[in-house]
């Protein structure tokens, strides 16, 4: 019989403690943000999709040597890199650098395997589109467009 009343006492007490926790939360400030209007600062280290890197600040050329290591190492096969020999230029000249973001798993192996640091991660994270084609990026064009 004493156990019966003890159950009521301890049970009721634990329930009141629980109510206290949630009541404290009502008073505390809200932690979420109203996303499209308010944005949290996203770390610059975010690994978004990849981009070609500029040669330097005011030069729109890139570092790529068309070695093809990125495309070769990519586990998802989302990179297409092609180049051609041109007269007067040592090595190959990059003609095609297509990147299929729909297949990419953002592992970053391409960036690591690049011996010339011609690739980098973009910090863009709000990507949306209406068709798959919109995520087939031509990285050369994107570089020139910047």
């Amino acid at each position, binding site marked *: 019989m004493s156990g019966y009343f003890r159950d*009521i006492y301890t049970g009721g007490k634990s329930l009141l403690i629980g*109510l206290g926790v*949630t009541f404290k*939360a*009502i008073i505390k400030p809200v*932690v979420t943000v*109203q996303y499209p209007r308010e944005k949290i600062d996203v770390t610059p280290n975010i690994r978004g999709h990849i981009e070609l890197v500029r040669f330097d600040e005011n030069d729109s050329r890139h570092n790529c040597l068309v070695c093809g290591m990125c495309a070769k190492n990519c586990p998802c096969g989302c990179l297409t890199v092609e180049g051609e020999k041109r007269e007067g230029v040592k090595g190959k000249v990059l003609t095609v650098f297509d990147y299929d973001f729909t297949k990419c798993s953002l592992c970053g192996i391409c960036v690591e395997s690049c011996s010339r640091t011609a690739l980098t991660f973009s910090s863009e994270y709000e990507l949306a589109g209406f068709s798959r084609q919109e995520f087939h990026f031509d990285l050369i064009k994107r570089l020139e467009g910047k």
Partner: protein
Amino acid sequence: MQQIIDLIQTYSLLRMLIAFLVLIGIVFLNAIVMGYLERKIAARIQRRWGPMEIGVQGWLQMILDGVKMLAKQLIVPRDADRFLFRLAPLLCFTPVVMIFAALPFSKALYGINLHIGLIYIIAMASINVFAILIAGWSSNNKYSMFGAMRSVAQNIAYEIPILLSLLSVVLTTASFDLQKIVEAQSGWLWFAVYPNLFVAFVIYLIAGCAETNRAPFDLPEAESELTAGFHTEYSGFGFGLFAVAEYGNLFIMASIASIMFLGGWNGPFGLASGPLMGAFWFLSKVFVLMLVMIWVRWTYPRVRFDQLMNLAWKYLIPFSLVNLLITAFLVKMI
């Protein structure tokens, strides 16, 4: 204008129709306000914003949801009992309106005053179980059926402590008339301040929570076990009516509590209670109780079915019985 008033006064049927429409409006308004408050308070408890998009602080959200529900198709499952499936939401909703008619919002503001108002309300509230059973059965869905069965057992078990705890008030006032019960509590001597009636009040609140299928006793719609329980198959306004009726039942539960234990339309410390002020005090008590219900809902996990029964039969019913005896003794003595 005068002609219209005359017309209304001449035809009592018309008068009833208008009263009925007003009551339906009140029930829907209650659902909108409560739905909004529930979402907002749940959000604050969980430290988020809740609805914010439509209107200032999202106050139009519920109206928009209502419009959305109206616009949706009412899908009837292939093997469902079509007639009963459509009947159930109406059967759930109608008693709510009928009970609202008998609630004394203030001394002068009520739909109808019955000498046996309490019995009428309790009887009408029981129809809710029937509606849920029909909804669950006619859906032809195993989850719905579980929900319906649970609901029936739960409601039958919890009606007893509700009645017993209300009976102690009836014994004290020697009346089933809600107006008289409220008048008996004029001044600050609300019934909840008497120790024996306070126990009855707490028992009523717990049992009422179960009776209205609110968490932590929301077993008929336990979403982690039964997906959505008895209204799994409902869509569109069938679902909407269930939601409206749920908030209506919550309102009824809270208003009975405030009438029987918290002095109804009496202001605290004998403050003036004209027709409008009375309604204000009444509504504020009801809303405080409903907010407590919401607060409880967003705090606790759900009980298991046998524990729910345990609570009713092992704790609430013995306590309310003993409490009733004590009250009867006290009434006889004093």
